């Protein structure tokens, strides 16, 4: 065991990477003594200790540096082999396309990063976004990763224009547009997912079109959901088409690259394969579940527990709880052989409030009419904390105080035991 106060100095050569893990009980202070270094694309300030907790980090240097660590880490080592130079080149490619767009007055590249789970998609996404933001630029970021939900909550997809990033908080999303898919499995309702992505894509286009500044030429960078050994490949393919990606970066899977190359290759589309970093840590089912729960907790309470959610009580008549595509959770295998579900996957159905709702996450839809629900983003999410059948009231945990901004609450299959 290392002494807590012991300071370790690491001298990194050009293009080396210091990787370390900090558990949630410990705090680690990282200081850049000399040279330059970056954490997933965000540069470290010189001689300013950065406090880190419960994280796995990689500090990379292009030009060599000296780093100091103080505090207990679970693991720390210096890696020589990184795919960073290829990621950098990918950035240059995108940068070239943006400059070209600027010259010709067209729209910038629409980038989607795909790959298996745990291939470092989100990290690459952040690296590319932060490189693009260097020099004070703004870029559109989209997340169609409904599995992890790092953008909002699991089961949600969305987009935001990003201008700032800090080492502690990563990219800072301030003006968020979020759609609620409601599930963490693509096969649950692929049609709904495609519909939502297509809505999101239209709004992204509108945003690029509308951009007063440079945003349109910058294009967007989107993080996608992990493709699981080809099982949700068809959905992914459709989603890539819906979002009109013209640069697809395939991370760490040759098979996926080959599939996409075969199915989506076209004149206007570049498909790039990049290797995954050796620093990416695999996550098992249990950890994944824990991360999803953390993400939900984070939505209400903040990653540091400093946000204050509020409880609201509504009567059954004040809200309309709906579900999109009811009956779809009957798996295809349960149907008679060769039979297909005749139910419309986008069908809206009312859900009668019952204890079944308990612990459910509901999306507060921006729709004003029932028909708009599928096409409307959400204001946010509420958590059903209590259903009182006799009093006909529901206690909801909402992120901010006051009345709910919308009356349609969309139910999915996301549950959270606080």
């Amino acid at each position, binding site marked *: 065991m290392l002494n807590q106060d012991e300071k370790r100095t690491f001298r990194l050569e050009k293009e080396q990477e210091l990787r370390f893990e900090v558990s949630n009980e410990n705090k680690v202070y990282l200081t850049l003594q000399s040279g330059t270094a970056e954490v997933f694309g965000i540069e470290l300030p010189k001689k*300013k200790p950065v406090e880190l907790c419960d994280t796995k980090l990689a500090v990379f240097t292009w030009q060599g540096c000296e780093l100091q660590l103080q505090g207990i880490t679970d693991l720390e080592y210096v890696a020589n082999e990184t795919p960073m130079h290829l990621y*950098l080149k990918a950035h*240059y490619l995108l940068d070239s396309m943006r400059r070209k767009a600027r010259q010709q007055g067209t729209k910038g590249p629409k980038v989607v990063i795909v790959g298996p789970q745990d291939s470092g998609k989100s990290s690459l996404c952040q690296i590319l976004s932060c490189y693009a933001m*260097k020099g004070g630029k703004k870029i559109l970021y989209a997340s169609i990763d409904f599995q992890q939900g790092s953008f909002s909550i699991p089961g949600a997809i969305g987009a935001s224009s990003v201008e700032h990033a800090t080492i502690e908080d990563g990219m800072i999303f301030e003006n968020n*547009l979020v759609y609620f898919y409601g599930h963490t499995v693509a096969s649950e309702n692929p049609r709904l997912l495609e519909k939502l992505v297509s809505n999101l894509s239209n709004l992204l286009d509108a945003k690029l079109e509308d951009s007063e500044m440079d945003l349109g030429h910058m294009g967007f960078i989107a993080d996608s959901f992990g493709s699981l050994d080809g099982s949700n490949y068809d959905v992914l393919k459709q989603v890539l088409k819906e979002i009109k990606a013209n640069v697809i970066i395939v991370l760490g899977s040759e098979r996926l690259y080959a599939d996409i190359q075969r199915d989506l290759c076209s004149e206007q589309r570049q498909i790039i394969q990049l290797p995954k970093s050796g620093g990416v840590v695999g996550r098992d089912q249990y950890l994944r579940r824990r991360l999803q729960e953390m993400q939900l907790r984070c939505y209400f309470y903040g990653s540091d527990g400093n946000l*204050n959610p509020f409880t609201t009580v509504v009567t059954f008549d004040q809200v309309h709880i709906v579900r999109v595509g009811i009956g779809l959770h009957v798996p295809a295998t349960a149907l008679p052989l060769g039979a297909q579900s005749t139910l419309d996957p986008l069908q809206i159905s009312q859900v009668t409030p019952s204890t079944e709702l308990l612990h459910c996450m509901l999306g507060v839809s921006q729709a004003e009419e029932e028909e708009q629900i599928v096409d409307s*983003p959400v204001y946010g999410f509420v958590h059903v904390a209590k259903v009182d059948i006799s009093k006909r009231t529901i206690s909801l945990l909402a992120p901010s105080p006051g009345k709910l*901004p919308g009356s349609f609450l969309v139910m999915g299959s996301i549950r959270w035991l606080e």
Partner: protein
Amino acid sequence: MDSPSAYLDASKEYSEFLLDLTFNSKPIIDNLTAIAAENKHAASAIVKAIESRIAAVSPDKKLPALYLLDSIVKNVGEPYRSLFEKNLQTTFLSAFRTVPKAVRQSMMRLLETWPPYFGNNLISLLKVRANEVQKQIQENTKGYEAVHVNPQVLLRTTAGNSHVDTKPQNYNVSYLERAQEKVPVPKPKENRIPAFLRLQQHGILNNNSEPTRKSSSKQASGVHSRLDTSSELMKQLQVETQLLVDTINAQLVRGMMPTQEQLNALQALVTVILQYANFNIIAQNFVPYLQQHTDNIVNQIKTLQENQQAQEQEAVIANAIQSLMSGYNSQLVPQNSESSLLVSERKIFPNNSKFESDVSSSCQVQDEIITDFNILRRLDHGFIVCKLYDDLQIVSESDGSRFATREDLRQHLDWLFEWNKRLRARRQGGICRMWYSSVHEWIQGTTSVRNSGMISSSMIFEDGTSQINIDKREQQLKKVDEEANQTHRHENKVFAGDCEDRCFVCGDCFEMEWDDELEALVYKDAIKEGGDEGTKIFHVDCYSVWKSQGGSHDWKSEDRDKNANEVEDSTLENFEHKESFSGSDLGFEIKAEPTKLDASEDFPDGTSDFPQKRLRTKEVL
């Protein structure tokens, strides 16, 4: 030779033996000499193998091969001597141009021993030529040194030149790469093409290398020196090209196909020179030479190819080179008004016109636009790192962000200040997550105060209308006025259990009903007046009767106006003010019974102290 194929076999076989000759080894040279002596029937093939070996290997391996030539001529003599003699000038001088200084001296000494075998005339001619070459090389290197080794220049100029990019270098890189890429090269062999090697040594392929940085800095310091640099470079490239053309020609004359590497190198050189021809006079003057020789080479390769069908790759490169040249011509069309001819050429090489248009368009841009990842893959990434780090000189001390201008930094610091303020507020627990943007807000990108998530009392009592955007709010306000004209009902809803349940005038009980907007039980058709001390409730009808009798000062309309004005920042103070105002005005003693209601569960502590707060309605906001 009996047949071309037998000839080729012999040549190939001997080439394989030659692969061993990587250093100056007497046993190997003796051995190879013996083989040559035993195979005089294949002399011409062996001679060609040696000559191409001398031309193709890297500079450090040329000398051993020359020693072999020397050994064969001296020990075996005819027919080798006369065969070597034919091409001696090319063989020797080509090698001489590429080797380091020390090797050049060895070669000069070797030359001294040759007059008995090759005759005085030839050797003295060679000596003269060799001296010329030596002088030329010295001048070139001098030029390079002047550019490269001048740290002062670097120091003085880097600060100011962050935007002037390493333009010519970038060109080189991409086009050399592109040229190289056109034909898949199996694998760079140990005998890499000198031209490439040299380019690399001079930092042309490697943009990160110090010399390039320095030379680019120097370029920035003035147009004049920039021209100087490119001129130096051009001279160098010119020498390389001449050498390569000589070698290839020598091989072609002997009916030998140039190797792929050679052709690739030639293609790369031609590409680079053609780019420079746009602004460099030396390059421009060199174009006719290139044109003549490349045409010659290409034609010869084509004829050769017809005879030996196997060599497809070479023909592909040859075509590429030719199309390069014609592409350049077509670019000059408008100036030379030879359009008809060249348009037809363009038709022959349709791919190439696209390629050429790339060249011309990218001449105008500062940074190379490379939209082919395969090209980028082969490049050194140093210059990209520079773009992300060194080109952005203004660094924020507090968080390490980099910017190109002070203004950008200032804006960033403004943001950072706000952000840190929020983080502090967050630590003190005064922040909540806000609802997400509506489509309209998102597209507009309006970052409103509300998004900061600071919790204020007004937010809590806003009844959740926080997400209604400004337009809607205005509409809402109008609506309020209209509605208020019709009835005071909304402003004066009375919460059940708030106070006495009998009408002040008629004394009847009120019916209770659920109010959707207030989310609470209210008395039906009830109206309320007065503060904590003097609240009284009426039936709406009774109220009007009571009021017509002059019972009260009409504070309600006043209050409404005030509310409309203070929509944004109504706070608890306002309430207290109102309460005291009305309370003092009215002297009625009606006992208030503050009871906690369902809807107030989420209010922070002290709810029961402010039962009147619920008088506020949604519309007022």
